[in-house]
């Protein structure tokens, strides 16, 4: 399927990341947004509120983030593509419905324009400290997908990917921006609608009466959907359920369901690798970065290379699931990984886990409020080389 040409603003724009994110969502087919104002994400919903009446769809500003994060799921089960948009404190309020989306297998997108935390923290200044919350924030075991753009252009491009992945895997997909990427204005090229690949929802081909909401028909472990109003008279619940969608309060049903929720992403992990590498082969030290920090990290890598050091750089565009196979291959071949991030050390834990002591792992923490100085990362690279 291609994007709807009536909805796509084809052309070259000078646009900030928040606006580009909104355009990406519209191009991807998002026709329902429920949101609540919160800095620095509000521009995404402001633009959607302005754009959607001329595209065909609904924006509603809900009473809080709890409501927003479940209203989008109602919209999805009525047949639309939907997202909500927030920042730190709002994301914390949404956690219950991240779990609901995982449990109901509601394809939807949560945009988090990260700011400094904890609590109200730094509303207008950047952070990257929600990375673990995105992965683990709701109670119970489940899987999600998370992407991290490092420019307004990627806010557009990866947003389309986020919606497509939500439909393919039926999981909540996190779009982990940050204040700098959200408010940075750069050139954004929006292609022709005919060049934008959009994944449509996979609906069942079975008849009412034969269809079971959580029966997998192939080895993807992702069941096809139905929507309200089509005569299926289906039931879904946030309780542990069987294939019929009916509550099943026992350990066997729990085991079967939770394992599948994990396994459907586990099984697709190799397809869910999206990283940009440069200079990794033959490197002594590899920098692993994501989001806005990757742009500072690249400057630090260039500084180190100018000193003659062999430095590789891996930028994660899909952060969850973590690209453990590739990082694992590199571990042991390089002396060390250096992981700068605008938090006190979150994704670095994944690098440590995957390298299993075969390479040293250095964290370059930053509490947020502004991006790293390239020198901070450069110095850590030089230390790692010793």
């Amino acid at each position, binding site marked *: 399927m291609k994007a709807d040409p009536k909805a796509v603003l084809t052309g070259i724009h000078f646009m900030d990341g928040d606006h580009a994110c909104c355009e990406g969502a519209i191009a991807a087919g998002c026709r329902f947004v429920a949101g609540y104002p919160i800095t620095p994400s509000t521009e995404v919903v402001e633009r959607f509120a302005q754009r959607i009446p001329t595209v065909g769809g609904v924006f509603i500003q809900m009473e809080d983030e*709890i409501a927003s994060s479940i*209203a989008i799921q*109602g919209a999805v089960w*009525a047949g*639309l593509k*939907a997202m909500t948009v927030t920042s730190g404190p709002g994301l914390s309020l949404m956690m219950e419905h991240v779990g609901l989306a995982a449990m109901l297998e509601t394809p939807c997108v949560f945009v988090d324009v990260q700011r400094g935390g904890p609590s109200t923290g730094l509303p207008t200044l950047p952070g990257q400290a929600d990375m673990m919350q995105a992965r683990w924030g709701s109670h119970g075991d489940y899987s999600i997908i998370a992407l991290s753009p490092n420019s307004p252009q990627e806010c557009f491009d990866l947003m389309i990917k986020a919606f497509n992945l939500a439909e393919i895997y039926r999981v909540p997909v996190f779009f982990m921006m940050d204040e700098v990427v959200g408010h940075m204005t750069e050139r954004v090229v929006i292609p022709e609608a005919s060049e934008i690949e959009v994944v449509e929802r996979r609906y069942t081909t079975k008849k009412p009466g034969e269809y079971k909401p959580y029966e997998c028909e192939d080895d993807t472990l992702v069941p096809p959907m139905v929507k309200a109003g089509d005569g299926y*008279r289906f039931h*879904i619940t946030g309780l542990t359920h069987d294939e019929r969608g009916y509550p099943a309060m026992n350990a066997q049903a729990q085991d079967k369901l939770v394992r599948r929720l994990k396994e459907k992403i586990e099984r697709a992990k190799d397809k869910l690798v999206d990283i940009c590498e440069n200079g990794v082969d033959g490197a002594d030290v590899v920098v692993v970065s994501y989001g806005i920090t990757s742009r500072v990290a690249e400057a630090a890598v260039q500084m180190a290379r100018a000193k003659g050091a062999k430095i590789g750089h891996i930028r994660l565009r899909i952060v969850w699931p973590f690209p453990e196979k590739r990082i694992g291959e590199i571990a042991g071949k390089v002396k060390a990984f250096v992981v700068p991030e605008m938090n006190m050390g979150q994704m670095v834990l994944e690098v440590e886990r995957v390298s299993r002591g075969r390479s040293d792992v250095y964290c370059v923490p930053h509490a947020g409020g502004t991006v790293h100085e390239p020198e901070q990362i450069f110095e850590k690279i030089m230390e790692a080389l010793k």
Partner: protein
Amino acid sequence: MSVPQQAITEIENPVMPFLRQERIPHIWCPGCGIGTTVNCFARALTESGLDLDKVAIVSGIGCTGRVAGYLRLDSFHTTHGRPIPFATGLKLANPELKVVVYSGDGDLFAIGGNHFIHAARRNIDMTVICVNNHTYGMTGGQVAPTTPIGATQTTMPYGNFEEPFNLPFLADACGAVYVARWTVYHVRQLARAMKEALLKKGFSFIEVLAPCPTLFLRRNRLGEGVDEVKYYKEKSVIKNGADTKEVALGYHSEIIVGKFVDRERPTWLEAMNSHFSKVLGDKFVPWGVQNGQD
């Protein structure tokens, strides 16, 4: 029993086609009033003439929260307190649907109170049915925002001293276009009110008083379910059109029942469509409007 067993089983219960029979027996206690409300709801659905393929039911968490799971409709058992915003998404995404929220007093008015007031204010086109048993049944009988002063609950072991909500007054003040209260004694009136609410465009609200014998009545030495229904019969006064300010419930005192509010107000979608048509003209792509009418 004077009725032969065979005769009972041969009579088709008119409610059966509405139930997911494979899920029976249900979880409700003997003497609980929720099943009676479901019976009335099934009758209201039949009489409403609505296309049942286009009726969606949404529940929160709790004893009444289980209603969605027993009805053979598109049915959604969501999270505690949040059926209204889920239903809002359903309705706005597919305006063809008739959306019903069926949940308990704790779910809708404690944890979910904020959503209730805003959905009523916006006049989202949905019917909200609140089964009010004055307590949190599923978690073992804790104080609710509807527990009368003086009643004992596990978290008010010396008797409740908090003022409860007057639910019809709250719904009225927030802008609901239809507000009624009945008890499970008033099965005919309740079924009729449910039918009216289902056919009413806009945010309609029905409070149904129902006994919780296990966790409200027994704890307060008020007898069994049937004793509570006798109380409903003896102490209810029908006052259609009553000022909702005057219908607050006391502790086992008089109950004012009836249809209190029935008025017209544009729904959220109607307001959105007419406003955008006015300000955006031809650029506006109407949403959920069939043939430019409705």
